[in-house]
């Protein structure tokens, strides 16, 4: 069984194999060193702080090809999931600010996690935003056989039975959760929010009648239309193109605009030119007809917010959330 040693020939053969492996490695290493001195001149790592297979991941895979064309170097997608994205983002704050590691980010996650956790491992301002390229507004849906025909019906029911109308959604302190809390405040009612681990597990709960409705994303609402669910309202400023029959909350008299935004960010203190180069590349990708088609097929709403605009949006949402959470805290302690 034991490897027979001793014959010089075998050792030579082994060393040969090793040398071949090393040579191959060196060759491939050289091949990766493409391009000249200006940024970018080597492969860029595009990190998704969530599990593979999710919306952020699929988006990144769609962008990968066009992004490589726009930047002229290869783009490698990898994952650093954990803690609802927090593990990846706290890693980002410790990453070399050379522009060769970019990471997906989500609003409102990066605003709310540092706000509600003692130590999320990062601060909102440390997430150096480059571009926000898509959003999924909240949508309020009920099953086909639900007695509630309109938003008004549902809110009246909640007025009559405080706390007993349940709305499912994806996760805690997410756009779904905050959307429900904001609706509670605007309408002066009390819906009970039931968090599920992701949109995927919330859908069967709605179809099986475990919850009265879902505060979910337009993407999921679009998927479920096939099953006959009713979209009562969409939390966007104007109607969503894929769901033309669904009114906005504003049309129904509630000033609720809330949803998740996805974008990319770089480590703090990344040079301004690099941020501009990347933002330009993502703008180009977002205008690629095929990318537009694929994103719309998946139900996303395209956004085009550069670094400045992204920061402004973040600041604006942060103030809204701070006030909301303060009010809630007063409610609980008072």
């Amino acid at each position, binding site marked *: 069984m034991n490897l027979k040693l001793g014959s010089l020939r075998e050792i030579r053969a082994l060393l040969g194999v090793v040398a071949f492996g090393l040579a191959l*490695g060196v060759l491939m290493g050289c091949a990766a060193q493409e391009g000249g001195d200006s940024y970018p001149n080597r492969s860029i790592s595009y990190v998704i702080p969530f599990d593979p297979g999710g919306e952020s991941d699929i988006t990144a895979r769609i962008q990968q090809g066009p992004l490589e064309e726009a930047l002229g170097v290869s783009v490698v997608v990898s994952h650093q999931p954990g803690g609802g994205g927090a593990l990846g983002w706290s890693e980002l704050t410790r990453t070399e600010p050379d522009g060769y590691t970019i990471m997906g980010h989500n609003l409102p996650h990066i605003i709310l996690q540092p706000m509600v956790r003692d130590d999320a491992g990062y601060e909102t301002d440390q997430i150096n935003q480059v571009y926000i390229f898509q959003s999924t507004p909240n949508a309020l849906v009920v099953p086909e056989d639900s007695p509630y025909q309109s938003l008004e019906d549902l809110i009246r029911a909640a007025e009559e039975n405080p706390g007993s109308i349940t709305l499912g959604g994806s996760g805690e302190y997410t756009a779904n959760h905050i959307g429900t809390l904001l609706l509670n405040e605007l309408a002066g009612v009390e819906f009970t929010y039931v968090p599920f681990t992701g949109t995927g597990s919330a859908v069967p709960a709605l179809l099986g009648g475990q919850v009265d409705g879902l505060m979910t994303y337009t993407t999921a609402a679009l998927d479920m239309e096939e099953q006959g669910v009713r979209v009562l309202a969409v939390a966007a400023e104007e109607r969503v193109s894929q769901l033309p029959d669904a009114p906005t909350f504003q049309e129904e008299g509630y000033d609720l605009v809330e949803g998740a935004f996805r974008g990319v960010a770089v480590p703090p203190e990344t040079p301004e030119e690099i941020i501009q180069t990347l933002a330009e590349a993502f703008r180009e990708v977002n205008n690629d007809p095929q990318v537009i088609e694929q994103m719309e097929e998946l139900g996303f709403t395209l956004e085009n917010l550069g670094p400045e605009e992204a920061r402004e949006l973040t600041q604006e949402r942060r103030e809204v959330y701070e006030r909301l959470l303060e009010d809630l805290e007063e409610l609980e302690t008072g």
Partner: protein
Amino acid sequence: MKLSLVAGIVTLVIALSFGLQRNFSPLGGLFPDAVLTVLTLLGIVMIIRGIREPARERPFAGIAASGLLAAIAILAVWVFSLGVAGFVISGLVFFLITALFLRERPVRIRVVLVDAAISTLFVVGIYLIFTRVLLIPLPQAPF
């Protein structure tokens, strides 16, 4: 040694170290609190059982203490060096060390060379498959 007694004490210590950190919202605490309560009760049962039963076998019987410590030491330093020296360097060094440590015959220069070759084959092979084929980054040396 009274194994049940030790198991009971270990259980209680773990439960305590987790329990000291509890500061939860009502729903976030429901499940961990239930688990901690049961675990504490089980620990107490084991302690009572341990006090009443006679001393039995020794743990780690049949394993040489030196071998056990060497195994844990190799693993610990290997994993620690991963963060310092990256996957390839730490892998090459510790693969070779482990292979030589497990030799039955005396170490000669030829043996070291063969083992070095095999460790290179494994470490570089895995590294290339991951980083070049599967495009999954492995820990890099910072230098």
